[in-house]
């Protein structure tokens, strides 16, 4: 079976030669959820934007982004416009500012529908807007409101409604809950989970918050310095990370009630690497607590690390692990 989305050896280099994504491959089946975790500068947002070809001019993108086997990167502008929103939609990071402040929210959602289905009548569009608002839990009388009249959580719901306006099959959610309070975050996550089940949506969930991903996604991929360094079923990855970076990241989210974390915050020395100045060999080696003598020179690719799991670390290589 062809996966809904298949990314093959994607490289993204910004103008000026900054490599943001350095060879990423991943598959997403219809109706599946995949979490993409990473810190600032890891390339996760760039990857999400590359899938929709939303990157600035002058950015070099190579590899393939196959949507039902058709390469998004090779699509003509007309075809791309049709695919965006109807097959592939995105909820942006910093979404609270991405609504038009001087247009009523119902009109903003209606506009997206009309653009893709110009033959719909006014009443039908209005009906669809009401349905969408209902779907995300906003009373349809709020369609007449402007964004500033809504709370942060409601605006995030509107953006999700907007992304769903043309019934996409794949939703890319880039830090959809980062600016929200914990309780509102839980509301939005539950909504996304419910929509994913009801509509059979595939969701690519991008965030720095590994613990959130582990709770909402079936599979998890962890990015560092423009590459995926670990991938697998999210529960397994979070509970027993194979890559030292994932281990450190998982430890950075304390388990409340677990004495191991009490009065014992855990982090990593150093900072995420600057994509303009990546270390040689394994890019994680300068911060790695388990680095071996060969790590500064040996750049490891993803390697099987257990059932249905991959990790890019020489510690999982046979022979090294037993040593």
């Amino acid at each position, binding site marked *: 079976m062809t996966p809904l989305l298949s990314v093959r050896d994607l490289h993204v280099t910004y103008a000026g030669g900054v490599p943001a994504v350095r060879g990423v491959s991943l598959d997403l089946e219809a109706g599946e959820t995949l979490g993409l975790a990473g810190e600032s500068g890891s390339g996760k947002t760039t990857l999400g934007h590359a899938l929709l070809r939303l990157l600035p001019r002058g950015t070099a993108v190579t590899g393939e982004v196959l949507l039902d086997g058709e390469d998004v990167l090779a699509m003509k502008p007309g075809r791309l416009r049709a695919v965006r929103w109807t097959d592939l939609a995105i909820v942006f990071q910093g979404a609270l500012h991405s609504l038009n402040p001087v247009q009523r929210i119902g009109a903003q959602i209606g506009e997206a529908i009309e653009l893709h289905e110009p033959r719909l009548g006014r009443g039908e569009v209005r009906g669809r807007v009401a349905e969408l608002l209902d779907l995300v839990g906003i009373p349809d009388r709020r369609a007449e409101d402007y964004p500033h009249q809504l709370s942060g959580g409601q605006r995030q719901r509107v953006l999700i409604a907007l992304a769903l306006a043309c019934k996409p099959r794949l939703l890319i959610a880039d830090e959809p809950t980062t600016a929200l309070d914990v309780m509102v975050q839980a509301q939005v996550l539950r909504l996304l989970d419910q929509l994913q089940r009801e509509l059979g949506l595939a969701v690519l969930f991008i965030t720095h918050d590994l613990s959130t991903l582990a709770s909402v996604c079936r599979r998890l991929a962890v990015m560092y310095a423009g590459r995926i360094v670990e991938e697998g079923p999210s529960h397994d990855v979070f509970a027993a990370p194979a890559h030292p970076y994932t281990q450190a990241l998982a430890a950075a989210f*304390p388990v409340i009630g677990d004495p191991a974390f009490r009065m014992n915050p855990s982090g990593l020395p150093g900072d995420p690497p600057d994509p303009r100045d990546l270390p040689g060999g394994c890019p994680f080696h300068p911060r790695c607590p388990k680095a071996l003598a060969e790590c500064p020179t040996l750049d490891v690719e993803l390697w099987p690390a257990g059932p249905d799991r991959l990790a890019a670390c020489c510690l999982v290589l046979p022979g090294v692990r037993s040593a």
Partner: protein
Amino acid sequence: MTPLLELRGLEVGFRNRHGELARAVDGVDLTVDHGEVLALVGESGCGKTTLARTIVGLERPDAGEVRFEGEPIGRSARALRAYRRRVQMVFQDPSGALNPRQTIYEAVAEGVRIQGAEGSEEQLVAEALRRAGLRPPERFYPLYPYEVSGGQRQRVVIAGAMVVKPSLLVADEPVSSLDASVRGEILHLMLRLVHETGVSILVVTHDLGLAWNIADRVAVMYLGRIVEQGTTEELLGAPRHPYTAALLSVVPEAARLEPQILTGETPDPARIPAGCRFHPRCPLYASGEAARLGIDERCRTVDPALAPVRDSGQRAACHATAVTAAVAG
């Protein structure tokens, strides 16, 4: 023993754009002891930042008082200056808290110049940077904020606060703008400062995991009021207020609990509900549990005080807890 900081009946209000009084801090009693880390936890709009700003003297209370080492803080410029040397604030965003045109040396030395600490300026700056983990300090003197990483910037901000040897650090979301892998290192630094210098820390945060990581005690704030406080182990182990229980249940790291997702968002502080301010969102009230206990009338009409909970060192402002001494987690 006299606590280092004591808030008594503190109230701070603002006029919103409709001219209504928003009671951001609505009657708060709280103490911070010497060498203690207290986490003040709550969602945005609960008044926790206003409370922090009032403690450091950036807002004036409408009623109640802030007492420091047993004395009310003075209102004269001189008294405030002396007070601010003892109480330093660390803001959320280190990039915004540092002047981009000032070198790191200047940023840290500024506190010494304004507050007039004792000793040679250069030695004080070097010691503060070293303590904050920026070693060797001389290497950082000539750098500008943009030349160091986000984690290092927050270390500079902390060094700038610690350089005048305060007794209390008020840190407002000190790590929320930092990457996860860097966050632990900064929290580690804060704990080390407490051990090495005896400073007390009031850390304002929405993050219960952070409290578990570094706080001795936790106070939970909802709509301008402390609704529960206790030691971190007690409060996060067995919350006695339904709001705390709900907050704890939605933390992904505490996934053992059945999530209780409250509907809506924190109400407007200009329209604080009558009775218990939490009752319109309270799961115990909504599920009929309050009615079963025969207290639903009280929930609607009587504002519960923060009272000691039976068989624990905790205090909670909940009619149900007063009856049963337990809230299902």
